[in-house]
């Protein structure tokens, strides 16, 4: 029998070293994030005022100050809402099929493969596809809805993958416990599996939303752009915040560049608010709240 050993100095040193390296890696990873936030906030607050949030760019001359991004905020919200409306149900149902019904069969392997392919589609290609198919071939007008279609091509695979992962995390025990009570499979999925995975699925959807909210290229090809307010997402060119930033940043005046920064800040704020909302819903629904 050997005696209980002390931690050797060498081990203690290695532990410290590894710990230090992890902290260093973390700091390095955080630098770009903080830098981006810092820059955007610093430059963006100047024009982030009530006028900015409530006015469009209509009748604002090339060198004029003032004006705002109301039309772009409205456009982004409508486009992202529409694309979520399309891709969340389809993506969620696909994930449910893959996890609960597909059982690794031919069809589910094919779907998995195509979802992977979709994940790799460059965003400009999804815009080109909608431009060629929806606008040129079918003769539909430029519209927020066309943009939403392009965005949902990007959003759908993300929703499928994240929801699939979360559904797979739900222990089989719970499904069997429900079956053993004489609960049909579809009800088990709706009442037991989905609520258990809810928080994770909501987070995944938020990440997908955040991703498409910042897309510029597909919007350029599908919603075109405008300086006026267009409330109808189904008809006529709209604006979106990424487009707005792109457009303003390219103009040669300081006032336009200030508006671009404010637009970027608004976009970040919107995504952050949505994220907070999702977290709040997750917390609200979690059993931990009642403990």
């Amino acid at each position, binding site marked *: 029998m050997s005696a209980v050993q002390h931690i050797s100095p060498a081990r203690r040193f290695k532990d410290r070293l590894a710990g230090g390296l992890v902290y260093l890696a973390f700091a390095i990873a955080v630098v770009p994030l903080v830098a981006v936030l810092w820059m955007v906030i610093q430059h963006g607050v100047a024009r982030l005022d009530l006028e900015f949030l409530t006015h469009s760019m209509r009748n604002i001359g090339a060198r004029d100050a003032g004006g705002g991004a109301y039309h772009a905020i409205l456009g982004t919200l409508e486009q992202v809402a529409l694309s979520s409306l399309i891709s969340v149900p389809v993506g969620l149902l696909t994930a449910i099929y893959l996890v609960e019904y597909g059982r690794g069969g031919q069809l589910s392997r094919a779907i998995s493969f195509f979802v992977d392919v979709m994940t790799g589609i460059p965003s400009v290609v999804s815009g080109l596809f909608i431009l060629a198919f929806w606008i040129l071939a079918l003769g539909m007008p430029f519209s927020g809805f066309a943009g939403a279609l392009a965005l949902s091509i990007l959003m759908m695979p993300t929703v499928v993958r994240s929801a699939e992962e979360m559904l797979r995390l739900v222990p089989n*025990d719970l499904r*069997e416990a429900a079956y053993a009570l004489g609960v049909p499979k579809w009800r088990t999925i709706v009442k037991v599996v989905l609520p258990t995975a809810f928080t994770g699925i909501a987070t995944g959807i938020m990440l997908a939303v955040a991703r498409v909210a910042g897309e510029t290229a597909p919007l350029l090809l599908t919603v075109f752009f405008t300086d006026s307010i267009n409330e109808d997402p189904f008809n006529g060119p709209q604006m979106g915040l990424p487009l707005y930033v792109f457009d303003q940043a390219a103009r040669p005046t300081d006032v336009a560049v200030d508006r671009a920064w404010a637009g970027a800040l608004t976009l970040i704020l919107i995504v952050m608010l949505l994220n907070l909302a999702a977290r709040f819903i997750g917390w609200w629904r979690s059993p931990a709240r*009642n403990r």
Partner: protein
Amino acid sequence: MAKQITVSGLDAYYGSHKAIEDVSMTIEPASITAFIGPSGCGKSTFLRTLNRMHEVIPGARVQGKVMLDGQDLYAGDIEPVSVRRMIGMVFQRPNPFPTMSIYENVAAGLRLNGRQAKSKTDDVVERSLRGANLWNEVKDRLNKPGAGLSGGQQQRLCIARAIAVQPDVLLMDEPCSALDPISTLAIEDLMVELKSEFTIVIVTHNMQQAARVSDRTAFFNLAGQGQPGKVIEMDETSRIFTNPSEKATEDYITGRFG
């Protein structure tokens, strides 16, 4: 209402692997039947064939007959979901629904099946929790999550959940193997109380437990690795433990193997 189960010539497969072969037995109503035997001999598999839970595993299938008071559970036009409503199950690991409160867990069987009148549900929840000897411990925190209970309490919660839908038969797969001795005794007492109302089948690795609670015992064994499990012997529990007719049974219960 407790019912009788009669099994004849039952084989169960996982894909091409035959896990149990030619099992025939009668499980008497309003009594406790224990299954014992070494690990991997197919006790859980057999138990799950009794309420058609076996077939939820991909590739799993069953051949043979299971009769519940004369009705063939594997007849072509039988709805598996309705079988599971009549034959409830308690699992080895307590598995309360994590998103539900204690109350909701017990009411789950009723609510998930769409039947609900608040006052009636209240009654069923109280009666089931009393039935599972858990009422006094949880009556003040019915709205707290079920996952916040101790392991033994969680298992009794699962029993309450199973009896809330008023099945005829209660299947229990090693219900005490994850529990401490005090909780184990509580659940054993509970089983003895419940057997007047339900037909109870319990798988256990604990010989004393089988001897303490069960009326009849079946001994399962398998000839070798990869072979299907079979019922070696089934008899009154007192006989199995004092004077078994098979050598293998005696070897197993005296601890010579398994």
